């Protein structure tokens, strides 16, 4: 029943309620398939992209502003057409996806680690430390997330010398988004920690003489992580969108390293000159990515909620 080997675990997962509810939800299966596809594309972008849009030597300005291949004047070598600098749109999307997803994952990871840590400490230690953490969280929550991200972004750009802005853009974005989004994790984890630390298994560990740090990490932490997974999934969509918004506003990724948001911003300027394909396709990719992530997040929330089972 409790096989510890890998195949055993795989089998017990295939037998689990979670997998069962996954199999029964068509929407989730489609969303998961789309997400996997986008992932693979992002990870293997250098290998599978038909062109390297950042290799200036490979660009031929004669090929600029080509429409998608199925339209009149299209070139079969550029399936979704090219932009004003003759960069292949498909390849730009692949590389942009790579950056968008990286920023999304890294910032979610940062927010989750920070939030879980602060929530765990706040809930377990309580008193003064807890009060401080939660008041900071309240202040953060009282501003729109995008404003906070803009603020952090601006502060960091102010600190860094101008010539490093482009290189550090990705790090700045991850920090800005990550530091904005930890609140939700912290609140949830703090709430569950307050419940869990009153439970008898924690009391039992205390009577045995297990240290506080150990109780926090080995007993409470594994039992408060369930909701974190759900928040993280839903937050991934949020983070990708925030990154796109920041990039769209011009304070995110530079055009030399475009994310999906940057592509949309740059393309947007040409939308009314008739070159719609440079903005529509990156936008559609972004929409599919966020929708897929959110659908999976919704499903996960319902599947892990014992009340709805």
């Amino acid at each position, binding site marked *: 029943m*409790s096989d*510890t080997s890998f195949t055993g675990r795989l089998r017990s997962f295939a037998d689990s309620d979670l997998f069962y509810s996954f199999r029964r939800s068509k929407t989730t299966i489609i969303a998961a398939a789309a997400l996997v596809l986008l992932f693979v594309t992002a990870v293997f972008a250098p290998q599978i992209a038909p062109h390297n849009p950042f290799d200036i030597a490979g660009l031929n300005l004669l090929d600029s502003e080509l429409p998608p291949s199925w339209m009149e004047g299209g070139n079969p070598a550029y399936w979704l057409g090219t932009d004003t600098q003759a960069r292949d749109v498909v390849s730009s999307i692949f590389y942009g996806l790579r950056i968008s997803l990286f920023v999304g994952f890294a910032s979610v990871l940062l927010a989750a680690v920070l939030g879980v840590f602060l929530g765990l400490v706040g809930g377990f230690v309580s008193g003064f430390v807890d009060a401080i953490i939660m008041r900071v969280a309240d202040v953060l929550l009282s501003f729109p997330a995008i404003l906070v991200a803009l603020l952090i972004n601006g502060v960091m750009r102010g600190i860094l010398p101008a010539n490093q802005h482009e290189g550090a853009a990705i790090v700045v974005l991850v920090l800005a988004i990550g530091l904005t989004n930890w609140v939700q994790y912290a609140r949830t984890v703090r709430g569950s920690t307050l419940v869990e630390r009153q439970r008898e*298994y924690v009391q*039992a560990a*205390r009577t*045995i*003489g*297990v240290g506080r740090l150990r109780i926090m990490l080995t007993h409470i932490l594994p*039992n408060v992580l369930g909701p974190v997974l759900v928040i993280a999934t839903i937050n991934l969509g949020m983070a990708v969108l925030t990154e796109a918004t920041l990039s769209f506003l011009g304070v995110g990724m530079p055009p030399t390293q475009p994310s999906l948001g940057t592509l949309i911003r740059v393309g947007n300027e040409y939308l009314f000159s008739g070159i719609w394909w440079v903005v529509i396709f990156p936008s559609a990719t972004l929409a599919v990515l966020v929708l897929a992530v959110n659908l999976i997040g919704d499903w996960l929330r319902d599947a892990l909620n014992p009340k709805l089972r």
Partner: protein
Amino acid sequence: MNAAPARMKVVDDRPLLSVKGLKKHFAMSKPLLNRLIEGGETQTVKAVDGLDLEIPRGQTLSLVGESGCGKSTVARLIMGLSTPSAGSILFDGADISQAPAGQPAAVRRRMQMIFQDPYASLNPRWRVRDIIAEPLRTYGLCASREEERREVDRLLEFVGLNSRDGDKFPHEFSGGQRQRISIARAISTKPEFLVCDEPTSALDVSVQAQILNLMRDMQRELGLTYLFISHDLAVVNFMSDWIGVMYLGRLVEVSPAAQLFNSPQHPYTRLLLDTIPDLGMSKRDCVPASGEVPNPINPPSGCHFHPRCALANDRCRRETPNLRAHDNGVRVSCHAVEEGRGDLPAVASAGNDHAAQAVI
């Protein structure tokens, strides 16, 4: 049965656990920041309000009472899960009243606890083997993994489970089996003293019998001393040598078990005994005593029980009675018993108005 029960093998006649003047007052106040800004007074709940008791080695003392009487708080105080406001707790002569749970290790290793809810007392993410081994690891009692494995197997079999069960997770077991796992964990450090906080109240009767039998067997085989906490007098009768009856944070009567059932002294003890359903059905249609336990935030003056007591007079309303020793090891805290006016056969049927006071 003897009035003062004693087991044959008891050599050391000093009590293993001795509690004096134990108090726990909880402040019912607002969070720190709100208090700093808004001010405001603190209300206190006297969950345990001056408790004296001794448990002789190898015997069982039970605390009984209704919800809110403080019996579980006593268990937590003794185990160091919360710190007493006043009073001393001597375990084999060592004062542990201010020491946190698990410390000092040399003393705390000798006392363990069994909890009420077998569904909450085992970490759902841990394998049974790790749950039982946790005390062994914490106190470094096993030299090697191999030794630890053997010891866990032995413990599992001792409490009536299979050594193969060690690799399972708690959710694969029934309530009774989980309570056995909990017991195995508690006795893994070879303790001399077990605090059992309503260990069977979450279990079905047929399973309760198994667990109670196991606990009695363990006491005989391992020479354990128990502090047993329950609201069920019939269970307490089966388990105890001594019984302490609590009401709103105070002990109202402490007696040898047989003595308490044969001649209950305190009016509240009599009330409790009257509420035991009679499976022999000899006293059907008797009129039950009325009233409920008052709110502990604002308990009645003097003797807390006076609003529900048929024997209450002015003195009871004014003056708090103390535990006084009577014959046969009986200690009672009641003015009426002390003054010899405690002979009324039936227990109070004070009007329902008192029950109305129970909620503010």
